[in-house]
């Protein structure tokens, strides 16, 4: 989607930055670029891999044995539901042309991929490939939120939440920022819209904020905080974390939509941020608690990746290092703060890691895009300061919208089907009660 945004940007005269960013657009119009297509096909597989099984295992290892299957089930069912809805109308809302209402949403012209032939192109790759690549983002975002209410949510509520949240939060926000809507170039925030390369706002801020609200509405797990049991399998968690790291190459470097230096630099800064944040978290944990844990270092990794996501296509290696330091450091302190100071049982720390990380990275993007700091430069007319305000505006709008809509959705679901399982079921565990299975019979 950057390509279109950038096309607009060119029209808006931001040529300098743009050209360096995507040589692709230099090609003669309408020609398929097989190399870019190959990389985005690959990236699509990588990002799906992030959710199935990556995120599912990462989350599954953090809960009690008696709930591990329910977490895997949530992620899996969400992936399926999101995929079908993406075809039915979500893609159209996010990336269609909403005509008069385009600032707000993309309309329904592309529902069921209407009019998208096998040869249709998006920029210089097949639109089907772009459709699939974007779908994988729509899959992982609601799955991230699951971390807020594991071990007590009703399965049916998860499905309803997924469907409504994608429709009223994810798809619109994606349209605003990536689909030519209100927050992109020439929108409410002026000629230079929000710069969110791979989803710092679209994915992490929306998921993080919604998770926080959901945790508050649904309430704490029984025995929180004192009697909660430790992660039942750090092994599973590390496995999932590693898959998230690998898949994130597709997430960020794939977001270049090209197979070139832009993708290469995005992959580089992404990786550097992940590594730096991991070491940062490890060091802080060591200093503060006297030992470095596996669960800790991989949490730092996720924080670093979430933080660099919006910046990945705009900054250089230095930006990657700083995103890692900031993301790892800030999230390290945010996590216990939310759980203990605020007493909110955002069970797997979705807001503290993804929300906080995504916001941090979105702001850092404005700073480290500066060539002086090794960045790829701002759009013409934009400065660090001006862009900072735009980024801030984007965060606020997305956060407020996510919070409000999530609140409404959950209230509706509470009435319609109920949010929580009974206390007995919660103690007995969701696996056997809701899904009729046990995680392990060794």
């Amino acid at each position, binding site marked *: 989607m950057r390509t279109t945004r950038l096309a607009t940007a060119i029209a808006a005269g931001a040529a300098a930055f743009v050209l360096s960013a995507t040589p692709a657009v230099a090609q003669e119009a309408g020609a398929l670029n097989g190399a870019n297509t190959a990389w985005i096909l690959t990236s699509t597989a990588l990002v799906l891999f992030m959710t199935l099984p990556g995120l599912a295992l990462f989350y599954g290892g953090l809960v009690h044995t008696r709930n591990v299957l329910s977490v895997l089930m949530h992620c899996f069912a969400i992936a399926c539901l999101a995929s079908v809805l993406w075809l039915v109308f979500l893609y159209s809302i996010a990336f269609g042309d909403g005509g008069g209402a385009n600032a707000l949403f993309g309309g329904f012209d592309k529902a069921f991929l209407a009019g998208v032939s096998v040869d249709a192109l998006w920029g210089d790759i097949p639109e089907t490939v772009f459709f699939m690549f974007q779908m994988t983002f729509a899959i992982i975002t609601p799955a991230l939120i699951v971390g807020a209410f594991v071990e007590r949510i009703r399965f049916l509520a998860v499905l309803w939440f997924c469907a409504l949240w994608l429709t009223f939060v994810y798809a619109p926000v994606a349209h605003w920022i990536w689909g030519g809507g209100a927050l992109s170039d020439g929108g409410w925030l002026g000629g230079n819209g929000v710069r969110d390369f791979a989803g710092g706002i679209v994915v992490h801020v929306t998921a993080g904020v919604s998770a926080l609200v959901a945790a508050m509405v649904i309430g704490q797990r029984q025995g929180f905080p*004192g009697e909660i049991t430790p*992660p039942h399998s750090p092994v599973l968690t590390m496995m999932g974390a590693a898959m998230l790291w690998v898949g994130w190459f597709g997430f960020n470097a794939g977001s270049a939509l090209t197979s070139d230096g832009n993708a290469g630099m995005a992959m580089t800064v992404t990786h550097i941020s992940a590594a730096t944040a991991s070491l940062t978290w490890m060091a802080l944990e060591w200093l503060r*608690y006297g030992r470095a844990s596996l669960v800790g270092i991989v949490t730092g990794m996720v924080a670093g990746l979430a933080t660099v996501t919006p910046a990945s296509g705009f900054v250089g290696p230095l930006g990657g290092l700083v995103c890692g330091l900031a993301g790892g450091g800030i999230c390290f302190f945010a*996590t*216990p703060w939310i759980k203990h100071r605020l007493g909110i049982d955002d069970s797997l720390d979705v807001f503290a890691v993804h929300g906080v990380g995504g916001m941090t990275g979105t702001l850092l993007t404005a700073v480290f895009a500066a060539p002086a700091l090794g960045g790829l430069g701002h759009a013409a007319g934009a400065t660090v300061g001006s862009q900072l305000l735009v980024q801030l505006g984007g965060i606020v709008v997305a956060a407020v919208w996510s919070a409000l809509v999530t609140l409404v959705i959950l209230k509706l679901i509470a009435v319609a089907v109920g949010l929580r399982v009974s206390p007995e079921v919660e103690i007995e565990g969701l696996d056997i009660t809701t899904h009729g299975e046990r995680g392990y019979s060794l």
Partner: protein
Amino acid sequence: MKLLIAVIKPSKLDEVREALTSLGIEGMTASEVKGYGRQKGHKEIYRGSEYTVHFVPKIKIEVAVSDELAERAVQSIQDASRTGQIGDGKIFVLPLEEAVRIRTGESGAEAL
């Protein structure tokens, strides 16, 4: 005969096994248990949150011995598994009315 039930530190199992073998006791049964006593469980910290673990992993061993051997067995289990630190564990002695070796049908002391 007596049935000795001892709850010990997992890392002590091998030493206890050797101690009993040297006494000529040639059989035992071990299983993984969790427990607490003076040693009141502990706290683990994940992502800055404290998790209370009430039960500490231990190994429970069950050894059936003849009356004569009982006392020395208790003693050697104690010697082998003691570290002097809290959590060392406990030994319980129960009366054992009968023992049968399934393979041969032998019963009583010679079944041990």
